[in-house]
């Protein structure tokens, strides 16, 4: 019996060693025998590693059709010369790590990207610096890919002149984490992408949206920061979304929203911070969304909930220092507001259960007026407007009767 095990062990070791010997490593660089990455790709077999040493590589398009690992040593620069697509990945299990990729070509027809992944799986794109590319990382029909710790910067003057940072179409089970995306059209764009986790990314000052997804079900977005994007974050036609611990701030402009929810259903929005946006959240046609423990601070409008929304629950949120807390465009209210903290609440708590004894109506008359006549903002905080608001609070006539928080909290909660 022992002998049998010994034989098995020997065979195993032999296999392992032979396997190792096949996974060759090829060095590429000015001081090495092989000077070009394309040349190296011609030589390698599946499972090999190519180490690319520092230098500038202008090789047009580098198409990867084998299962290889490409590692940049000392940040080699891949220059697309504003004409080519630097990396195209066609094979599964490809890793691209530690490169600086710059100046890809520009084409709205072919959607040229710095790294484009075609119909494959298990690609890992990590620790790269992408500078001045059209699209950054583009995945089409990809599965189980990882995009981690990349820095993407673009300098497009308009939406048309730049592509998206991380763009994915018809993919599944992606992991997008720790990336920083600046100046692209959309920071992260997902369309028909399912079961994906987006975590710890920073999308700053992108031309259009920081995050943009459509028809992307069952995805989770955690601890991302979306700051100063042209139109904030917009998500559409999706169900089962989970958004938690994200920060949405300084998305300013008439059509800019911290978070725009259009036809989002059965989703959770929790522990997020919305600060200093023109409109923190705009909800349109969204049903059964749970909004819990979010912080709304210093926004123009904290929550614009259109009358087309239904069965949403807004609970245990803090509304602090917003110009308007809640605005709506109709009198029908099918949503629940309960146990939120409103800093504009002026009620009392006689039974000391930390909940106000009179309901709070977060929609002010003037917010309805401004919704209809935006120019009326000119008179905001004037004496006459205050008078109108007070009268309305006492006898509600124009504001929706049922839009109220019956148990407003007396103290802000930890979110």
């Amino acid at each position: 019996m022992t002998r049998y095990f010994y034989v098995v062990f020997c065979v195993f070791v032999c296999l392992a060693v032979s396997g190792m010997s096949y996974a060759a490593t090829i060095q590429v660089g000015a001081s090495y025998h092989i000077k070009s990455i394309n040349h190296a790709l011609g030589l390698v077999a599946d499972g090999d590693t190519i180490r690319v040493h520092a230098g500038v590589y202008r090789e047009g398009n580098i198409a990867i059709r084998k299962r290889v690992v490409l590692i940049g040593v000392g940040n080699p620069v891949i220059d697309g010369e504003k004409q080519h697509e630097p990396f195209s990945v066609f094979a599964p299990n490809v890793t691209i790590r530690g490169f600086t990729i710059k100046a890809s070509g520009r084409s709205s027809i072919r959607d040229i990207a710095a790294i484009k992944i075609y119909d494959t799986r298990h690609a890992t794109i990590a620790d790269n610096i992408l500078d001045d590319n059209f699209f950054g990382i583009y995945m089409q029909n990809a599965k189980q890919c990882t995009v981690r710790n990349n820095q993407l910067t673009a300098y497009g003057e308009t939406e048309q002149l730049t592509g998206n940072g991380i763009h994915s179409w018809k993919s599944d089970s992606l992991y997008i984490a720790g990336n920083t995306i600046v100046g692209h059209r959309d920071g992260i764009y997902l369309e028909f992408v399912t079961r994906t986790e987006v975590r710890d990314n920073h999308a700053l000052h992108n031309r259009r949206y920081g995050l943009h997804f459509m028809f992307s079900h069952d995805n989770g977005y955690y601890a991302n920061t979306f700051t100063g994007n042209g139109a904030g974050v917009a998500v559409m036609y999706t169900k089962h979304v989970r958004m938690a611990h994200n920060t949405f701030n300084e998305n300013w402009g008439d059509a800019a929203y911290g978070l725009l929810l259009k036809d989002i259903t059965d989703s959770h929005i929790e522990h997020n911070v919305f600060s200093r946006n023109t409109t923190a959240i705009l909800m349109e046609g969204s049903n059964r969304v749970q909004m819990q423990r979010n912080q709304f601070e210093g926004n123009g409008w904290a929550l614009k909930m259109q009358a087309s929304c239904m069965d949403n629950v807004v609970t245990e949120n803090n509304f602090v220092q917003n110009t308007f807390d809640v605005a709506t465009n109709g009198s029908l209210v099918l949503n629940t507001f309960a146990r939120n903290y409103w800093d504009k609440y002026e009620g009392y708590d006689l039974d000391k259960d930390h909940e106000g004894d009179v309901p709070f109506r977060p929609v002010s008359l003037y917010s309805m007026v401004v919704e209809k006549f935006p120019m009326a903002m000119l008179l905001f905080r004037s004496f006459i407007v205050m008078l109108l608001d007070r009268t309305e609070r006492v006898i509600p006539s124009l504001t929706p009767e049922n839009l109220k928080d019956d148990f407003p909290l007396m103290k802000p909660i930890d979110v």
Partner: protein
Amino acid sequence: MNKIMKYVIADLLRSRAVLVYAVVLLVLSFSVFNIEDNADKGVISLLNIMLFVVPLVSIVFSTVYLYNSAEFIELLVSQPLKRGMIWMSVFAGLAGALGLAFLIGVGIPIVLYAFTVSGMVLLACGVLLSLVFVSIAMWAAVRIRDKAKGIGLSMLLWLYFALLFDALVLFILFQFSDYPIENGMIAVSMLNPIDISRILILLQVDLSAMMGYTGAVFRNFFGTGWGMAITGVVLLLWLVAPMWFSLRFFDRRDL
């Protein structure tokens, strides 16, 4: 001129009304900042007080003072002094006293609790509003000889600037909301010094909301150097114009 100004200020301080005004402002501001946990919210509460109280006190107090010291002014006119200089000194004394009272009453709490851009804008606007309404009071007082009527006129003027004007603007807004009235409305708001100061502070404390559609109109005007310059000139005009009219009238009036 200095002598008359000094005398006016000493006279105002002796009557204690200005002192009481300063102390009330001080107590109000301190309590506002102690109740509100956030500096910007404190500034908003103070804004409401400022837009309401400062013009009222400035205009009514100045009118009453001018009528009460009518005999003193007559006495001064009989002296070998230029009329214009007498009138200017009285204005300087009144404006100095009320402006100083505001600076102490609101300035100290703001420096302590809300040393921010919005706080500073509030302070500057408050001082300017004090001066503007003293100047309007001078005009009202010199135009009408009867004390009761004069005080009535000054109260009416305050009511107009604080309330009626805005109601009128709101009415125009609703009536002409289908027309491109944005720039026109900014021009209209220039006709009221209270509105000018309110919008200037609004642009600081409600910045996020102002970034919206109308905000764009505001920012295109108030956000630019030219817009700010025009606003400053208009506010100064509000200070100078009533004063100048009253001065002209005082020069020619048969006392």
